[in-house]
């Protein structure tokens, strides 16, 4: 006998497995009875009616790089805030976890402000 929480995880994984099987089976059912008629034009990529030129995976300017960097930090910050929010009602005395989280957020607001400042300077990127 497994623990109830673990059983729920198994139910979920089983659901995902079944949900994976259904579209794959549907894909095979659809693909197999076809007579494919490939032609060079059909297999070209679409470029708004022009003949495609150059590589598909061209180089692009990453304009919003500071946002991406700060996102990596704040994704983790959100997890810490979740942990804090969950224990908010059970902490004794109430509100004892607030100063640490305020200092934590204050420290992290500085790089956020700097990255927004950097990202707003378009000519940098």
């Amino acid at each position, binding site marked *: 006998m497994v623990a109830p*929480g673990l059983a*729920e*995880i198994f*139910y*979920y994984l*089983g*659901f*995902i497995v*079944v*949900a*994976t099987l*259904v*579209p*794959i089976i549907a*894909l095979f059912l*659809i*693909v197999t009875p*076809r007579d*494919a*008629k*490939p032609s*060079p034009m*059909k*297999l*070209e*990529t*679409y*470029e*708004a009616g022009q003949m495609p030129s150059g*590589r*598909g*995976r*061209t180089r*692009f300017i990453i*304009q*919003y790089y500071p*946002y*991406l960097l700060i*996102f990596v930090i*704040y*994704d983790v*910050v*959100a997890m810490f*805030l*979740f942990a804090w*929010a*969950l224990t*908010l*009602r*059970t902490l004794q005395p*109430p*509100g004892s976890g*607030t*100063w640490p989280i*305020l200092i934590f*957020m204050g420290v992290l607001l500085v790089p*956020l402000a700097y990255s*927004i400042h950097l*990202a*707003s300077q378009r000519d940098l990127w």
Partner: protein
Amino acid sequence: MADPISDPIGFSLEIMTSPLFFKVAVFPGLTSIGIIIALFIWLDRKITARVQLRVGPLYASPLGGVLQSFADLIKFAFKELFIPRNADKFFFVAAPVLALIGGAGLVGLIPFTPEWQISNLELGLPAFLAFVTLSPMLILLAGWSANSKYPFIGGLRSLFQQTAYEIPLWLSAIGVVMMAGTMNLIGIVQAQSKPWVIFLGLSIPGWYIIPQALGALLFFITATAEMERIPFDLPEAEPEIIMGWQAEYPGFLFMSAAGASFVRLYAFSALFSVLYLGGWMGPAPVPALLWTAIKIIIVSSLIILLRATFPRVRIDQLLRAGWTYLLGLAFLNIVITYLLVVGPRI
């Protein structure tokens, strides 16, 4: 329980008739997801048409074209599946199918009522939000594997857009966790069962839409951005980059790619009604499941109305608004919730 080796037929019959199998296969599982998605596509087209003084789907059934999506499904299924010449074939096929599976995985966590839920995870809310995080990756994968310019631009846009909405989405959901003290979705609904205000014998339901009004608004906006629907449909903007990451997809794969966003519309409407609208709770004569359905239809109709009425935002506007206004308001919502829960003391 029959032995699976000595009595395989009896074992499979027991599996087939078990309530869990019904949940996985019929409701709230796969069959119902398929049918509801088809109905959502019809609702989307019909509402948009009414707002724009058109008629929308009309002929496919006596009831205003309800069966149009099913007819489209059959048509898509018989289209030829061809893959662009230079594409990475495996990932090109896998990405939209995985997006569809990811959407179904979201629905598996939603409690429609305490009985009608596939998996009651203790960390249901973070699991939902973590599962959501996968979809921009899949869109980038689809855009990269197609080896074509427009899909690639769409994939990159999806990645940037994720950085804009993801943090406000999580932070607005934190308000609910602070109020409820649990991340279990059933627990969150049960925490809303106590009436909020009793005044001269009148009681307002204790749904979190009232104390969490700002959080609910932020969640609504960021969830719309997550679903990549207008006004935030940058990765597939038709007039700019020609359906973006979906541009190269034929037939069934296009149906999976487009259907995945509707599965997420369904799942997010359900999550919104669970977090903020009290889930299955409501006055007694209407059954609980019907209350959930009514709330889901109201929320999803609102999201569809946005599509019919708003223009598309620009990506730099979205990023800047996401990192300044939305993030700032999300922090403000946390402060307000803190004052509500703990009071003005540190």
